[in-house]
């Protein structure tokens, strides 16, 4: 059993923080809370967390300055920035300050949860793996080939990248915006269900001639690739 993930929420809105703590607890994540930048910085420096969720506008010390200070102290805990400012340039400044992900307010909790889980890296494939495996599906990052039950599947380059991202985060939910950001490198709102159509195309390629479904749609959140027959938490063989 993997140890429970532990995160720190630095958020000055107490009601929002309480809601987040409760929702994370229900999702099996332990959270601490700091209500201003100074105490947040202190807690993040003194304790070990898997992920820091930092509001951008905080009393006593601005969120971005908390992140820069942490990075200066060589503390590389992944940071997700929450912000009421959601524009392109704000995202850029946030990530430049040392943030790892950026989520504009208002957000769906499922989106936040999915991103925190991905940042926490408790599931999914290690970065250095050259071959990702989920059940009988195998993706070779070097030769750019995909096989299922030993049979090679022909994917378009984008479909390959889509599957690569899903398999890298196997066993955890990835949202549509995460896919758009990581596979297409766009952060805008595509308005239509463009991602769904891409995923369903990919799904038909990897599942059509096989009995076992691998790619699940998680209602209200996004998608997850998982070997349903495997025991435990669905982690691919490590």
């Amino acid at each position, binding site marked *: 059993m993997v140890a429970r993930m532990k995160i720190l929420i630095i958020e000055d809105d107490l009601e929002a923080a309480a809601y987040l703590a409760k929702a994370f607890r229900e999702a099996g994540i332990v959270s601490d809370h700091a209500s201003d930048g100074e105490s947040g910085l202190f807690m993040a420096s003194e304790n070990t967390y898997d992920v820091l969720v930092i509001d951008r506008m905080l009393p006593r010390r601005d969120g971005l300055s908390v992140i820069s200070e942490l990075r200066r102290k060589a503390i590389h805990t992944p940071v997700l920035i929450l912000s009421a400012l*959601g*524009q*392109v*340039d704000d995202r*850029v400044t946030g990530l430049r300050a040392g943030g790892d992900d950026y989520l*504009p307010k*208002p957000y*769906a909790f499922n989106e936040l949860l999915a991103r925190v889980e991905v940042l926490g890296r408790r599931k999914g494939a290690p970065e250095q793996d050259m071959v990702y495996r989920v059940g009988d599906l195998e993706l070779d990052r070097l030769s750019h080939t995909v096989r299922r039950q030993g049979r090679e599947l022909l994917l378009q380059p*984008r479909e390959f990248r889509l599957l690569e991202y899903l398999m890298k985060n196997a066993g955890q939910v990835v949202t549509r915006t995460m896919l758009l950001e990581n596979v*297409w490198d*766009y*952060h*805008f*709102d*595509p*308005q*239509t*269900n*463009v991602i769904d*159509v*891409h995923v369903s*195309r990919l799904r038909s390629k990897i599942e059509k001639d096989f009995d076992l479904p691998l790619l699940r749609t998680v209602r*209200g959140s996004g998608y997850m690739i998982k070997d349903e027959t495997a025991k435990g938490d669905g982690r691919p063989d490590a």
Partner: protein
Amino acid sequence: MSRLRVLLRTTALRLSALYLVLFALCAAFLVFYVTAMSERLLEQQTRDAVTAEVSQIDNVYARGGVNALLRTLERRARQPGANLYVIAGPTGEILAGNVASLQPGLLDKEGWTGEAFRYQRYTDESRKETHVALAHVLVLDNGLRILVGRDLQEPEKFRVLVRQALMVALGIMGIGALLIWFAIGRNALKRIDRMSDASTRIMAGDLSQRLPMSGSGDEFDRLSESLNAMLGRIEKLNEGLRQVSDNIAHDLKTPLTRLRNKAEAALAHKATNSGYRASLEEIIGESDQLIRTFNALLMISRVEAGAAAAEMSDVDLSRSVADCVELYEPVAEDRALTLEADVPPDIHVSGNRELIGQALGNLIDNAIKYSEGGANPSIRVTLARRDDRIVLSVADHGPGIPADKREDVVERFVRLDESRSKPGTGLGLSLVEAVMEMHQGSLELDDTVPGSENNRGLTASMVFPTPSA
């Protein structure tokens, strides 16, 4: 008389006073110069005439002796307006001539008498008058002294006349200048007054007011014209702002109302768990739509304020377009539409990749929405260099936009389809336009099939300037 006081305070008056003083100095100089010059000229003339006469008389004496001389002088002296002639003995007593008396000692020295002198002459009325004259004295070998002179009364009169004429002329000019200045100053002041009256009314809130123009195209008109153009722009912005806030009120309140109604309805009905769930999901859907509208609005105002301009860099437009088309292609295919791209490689612009992607996404999304179920379900994305510009267009064969509506559709929240049956925020084209303005480009809307009534289609083009190397 406050008007006069205002007039006295003006810059025009100060300038005029300065000019008046300069003018007076010049005029005074002119008067002195002209009179002095004419005086010198007249004196020179007088001297020349006298010199000529003296040499004549000398000649007459040389040829005819005293008698001839006397006869000649006598004849000349009697002519009306004659010069001065005096024949005197060696001691200075006057023997003949037309002069009654002279300043004593005048005849002692030969040559010019130097200064002008006083004398009395016989006039027609035999009265003795004192005159001023200039004369030359000739001493003959027999001791007789001949004086030939010229009266200075006439030149003196002329000089006075010239001076008077000049003074009068300058006086008239001075007074005229004053009057003209007063008239011009008053006129200018009146126009400025009218302009400031109009500005006061405009400041009071009537933005439809314009500054008056005389139609002469002078400085005031040019000033009014540019101020009026500025007012027009302000009015348009203001109008836009008002319309936007009206639209925001409408487009945000409507879904908010729906959201509230749904929540109320869910509470009112004794619903099952799954009923509540469905209601809540609908409510979340509504709020997502609201958030989407908010985000689009914020994005437009951020782009318009130029906040994203700092994040401009070199963008491989060919690649971005290909990516974007690839992103939307399956959706189009799902809806039985063909999305084709004609994209030559290596076209770059200076810009913001995210915003360009969002703008192109909006155009493709629109094209998909309005092509669905049409007679010709093909959408074509073309990237091309045209002259010194780079044109990225999305052409569909949907219902299109009539030429007179094209300006409206880029306004915020304007949707041609009044019933708003198609999903969307009504902000798509506004965002594209704002993005293009940020890139010093423009959004152009045209028919795909010109001349067609029903299936004209829409070609929306993002026109970029070619980046400077």
